[in-house]
């Protein structure tokens, strides 16, 4: 079953350019149906989870390619498969203005399968394998428009990602040597006897592996690929760089920290302080760059950099509560950020305006889009009543509970970031709705809200932002169970 959900999108993707569709809408229906089917299968599988590990192939020694559905898989796979059908729908509309659609949708759908592979991996090797594959399958998407900028951006993305994976690879090796198994077990698999006195080396390797996977999760100083990748079409930026690719990086770090090295080994060590400090720095850095950035999508990209480090901050607290905080922000931010990006994409699609200072007064012409953008802005800031507040709350709570002084500083970073987020998001909202006295509405003739294919996903996401904001108890409880290892 697991193999089906991973392979189906990959195959569907490969088929797209090969089948000669008569009309574009046929292709759309084909693809959407397959994606929806796959998502349903995933959810079915998550709800009726089998306990066992499914091994596909054995490599040398005790290394194998295996899959498993455990708590973390449920979270990530559930998130990805819930968002993908909407994203595909949105992409159909958006891509009417771009070219080479077939190839685009091929890689776009293949990415779905690969991301599921990462989430369902049962051991570090399998995850590493799909991780590399994810890079390869998303590079053509970044490169899509084939402008000079796009090619440079995709190269940068490729180098950074492969480089990061190379260093994460070192971590993999050490887990192989010093762990009783490479499988993911909550609490870690390191064999204390084997380690002997080499604790410091292992901590160093952990930090290296953290930074390696962290490249995809855009931590400083390896984050500059993300804003550059904003040159890709918006469905790519939104789904991949706000949800799938970067969250895979965060997911990998969660696996590394809680399921491979284990928090008992890492907590209280200098390694924890180093990685926590890095995440704290990134939180503030990302937001500061966002404030200065005038290109809309790049601004949102910097926002993503910052928010990813919220998740990683939660991870570095290294307690079950920290994991809960991290997971809640993983899910909630994905929804918030994808709706922000989709709004930005809608704006660019309808008006061809890319810069913040060009957005004056558009709020009245595209009320739905900007209304939703405002909601996502409030959510990112952390206004109570929306999902962002809940995830920030959980993160702060975990930090306070941990008693770690550095973590207290982390709360400060979170709040500074909240303020900066308010600045860079609300200035856009204010511009759109309060354009100022000497504004000429005549420049906005003929601009309307986009059609249902783009609006429907936006509404659904907003609904979830509000729902999670007001009624988050069930899902937080679920995260608590995952953190406690019940799944």
């Amino acid at each position, binding site marked *: 079953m697991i193999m089906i959900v991973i392979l189906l999108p990959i195959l569907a993707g490969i088929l797209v350019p090969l089948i000669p569709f008569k009309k574009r809408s046929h292709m759309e229906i084909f693809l959407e149906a397959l994606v929806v089917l796959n998502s349903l299968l995933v959810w079915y599988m998550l709800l009726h989870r089998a306990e066992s590990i499914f091994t596909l192939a054995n490599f040398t020694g005790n290394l194998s390619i295996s899959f498993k559905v455990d708590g973390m898989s449920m979270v990530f796979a559930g998130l990805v498969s819930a968002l993908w059908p909407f994203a595909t729908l949105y992409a159909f509309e958006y891509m009417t203005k771009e070219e080479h659609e077939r190839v685009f949708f091929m890689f776009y759908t293949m990415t779905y399968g690969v991301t599921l592979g990462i989430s369902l991996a049962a051991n570090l090797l399998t995850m590493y394998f799909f991780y590399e594959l994810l890079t390869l399958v998303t590079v053509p998407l970044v490169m899509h428009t084939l402008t000079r900028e796009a090619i440079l951006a995709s190269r940068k993305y490729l180098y950074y990602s492969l480089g990061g994976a190379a260093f994460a690879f070192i971590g993999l090796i050490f887990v192989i040597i010093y762990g009783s198994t490479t499988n993911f077990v909550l609490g870690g698999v390191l064999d204390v006897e084997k380690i002997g006195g080499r604790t410091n080396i292992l901590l160093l390797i952990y930090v290296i592996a953290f930074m390696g996977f962290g490249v995809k999760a855009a931590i400083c100083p390896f984050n500059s690929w993300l804003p550059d990748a904003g040159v890709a079409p918006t469905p790519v930026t939104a789904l991949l760089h706000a949800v799938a690719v970067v969250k895979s990086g965060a997911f990998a770090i969660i696996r590394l920290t809680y399921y491979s090295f284990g928090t008992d080994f890492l907590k209280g060590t200098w390694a924890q302080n180093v990685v926590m400090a890095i995440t704290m720095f990134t939180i503030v850095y990302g937001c500061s760059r966002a404030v200065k950035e005038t290109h809309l999508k790049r601004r949102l990209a910097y926002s993503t950099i910052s928010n990813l480090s919220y998740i990683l901050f939660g991870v570095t607290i290294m307690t079950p509560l920290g994991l809960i905080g991290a997971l809640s922000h993983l899910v909630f931010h994905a929804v918030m950020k994808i709706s922000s990006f989709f709004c930005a994409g809608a704006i660019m699609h309808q008006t061809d305006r890319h810069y913040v200072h060009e957005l004056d007064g558009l709020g009245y012409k595209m009320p739905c889009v900007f209304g939703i953008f405002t909601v996502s802005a409030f959510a990112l800031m952390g206004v109570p009543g929306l999902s962002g507040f809940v995830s920030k709350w959980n993160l702060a709570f975990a930090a306070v509970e941990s008693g770690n002084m550095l973590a207290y500083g982390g709360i400060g970073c979170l709040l500074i970031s909240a303020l900066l987020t308010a600045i860079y998001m609300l200035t856009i909202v*204010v511009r759109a709705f309060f354009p*100022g006295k000497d504004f000429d509405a005549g420049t906005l003739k003929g601009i309307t809200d986009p059609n249902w294919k783009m609006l429907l996903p936006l509404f659904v996401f907003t609904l979830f932002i509000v729902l999670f904001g007001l009624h988050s108890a069930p899902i937080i409880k679920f995260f608590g169970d995952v953190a406690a290892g019940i799944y």
Partner: protein
Amino acid sequence: MQYIILSILFPIVAGLYLLIRKESENRKTLLLCTGTFLIISAVLVIMALCLAGGGMFTLFNLTDKLPIIFKIDEVSVLFSVMTIIIFLCAGFFSFEYMKHEEKEKRYYGFYLIVLGVLIALCFAGNLITFYLFFEMLTLSSMPLVLHNGSREAIMAGLKYLFYSLCGAYMALFGLYFVERYGNTLTFSAGGVISEQAASAHGGILLLVAFLMLLGFGVKAGMFPMHAWLPAAHPVAPAPASAVLSAVIVKAGVLAIIRVVYYIFGSSFLKGTWVQTTWMILILLTIFMGSMLAYREPVMKKRLAYSTVSQLSYILFGLAVMDAGSVTGGLLHVLCHGFIKAALFLCAGAIIYMTGKTRVEEFRGIGKEMPLLLWCYTIVSLGLIGIPPTGGFVSKWYLAQGALSSGIPVFDWLGPVILLVSALLTAGYLLPVTIKGFFPGADYDYNSLRKKEPSALMTIPVLILTILSVAIGLFPGAVVQYLSQMIEKII
């Protein structure tokens, strides 16, 4: 209990309705709607106050540990009564005033929403509910500030937004710790910090308390984060400034009351470095505010600095943590509210009728609008602290409380600063009166016209003036009411 919800929701929904519906040709229908909504809201609030009783009411749970609770206690009564009175007055004033501004519908929409949010703040039963609506307050009042859409207005609006958010987040930091180490987040007279929490985590809790004071103090215009006030007031429409200075900033004061007396408890904070530092900041603000007001030529900005200073009078009363001073502080909440609202409405009327914004241009205004300027004079006297106005009573209690508090240095320094500030207040308020009624020999009397503003504008000002004097003449009932409450929290 449902009245609590209704009194909060009705204005918010009404405001949203106004925002969303299409522009109507007929201005009169808009005004009629708004007026009706305002009155209904006020009625609902009064019914809630009368009928709700002292119980707590949980609306729903935001998360497992964070319920949204409403409760009506004496502090709620005080603040909510003041709020609806001022909102009604400023609301009717604005029907006339907004004739010379545009996009009225948006203004009234947000005006109503702000009213609903403020009522929610008054009725909030725990820190998280309070925080939720505090954030909403900032977000919904910002459009009022930048209403007229000029570049300065937008800049001022953004400045207001960011300062307020900065303050809110500082308070949020504290919220996290209070939730962890306090017994509960619900407001309880005397505080929620238990003995062992105080001894085990005292240091961090004090730090957190200080941060919360600074954070909420931003809204209350406390140094060093007061700079948004003088930026926001001149650009906002006058009735909005009135509401801002008289009521919205009181939300900051309300927050501090809740934090100091109902969360941390005066016993926890008394005598600590937090109290001392806070008092230094307050006294600094009082003096500085008055000084800057004295030197400011633009009328509305002068009044803004005055607010900065006057709010710190209230905060001083709260910081001293003595029964008398707290009484004085709370009385001043009421008095200053009415007085400042009246002052701003006067300034607004002058701008509306003559277009003049600078103090030196107000020569001879008394001849043109005698009634208005009389009201102005009376409330100014109240602000300076001359009997028998309300302002005198509150200042009396403040000084007395300070002297009897027993805090070294501040027990005499406080009253001295209050006195100096009173002199400065006279210095910045009275020249308008003097020049207005006695413009001097070289004034061109022929250019004078009778320009008394219409009833819709004068009556609210009159009401507010009368109220401020009434408190001065009959303080007994209010003081009685307050002292019951204060006993519980000192």
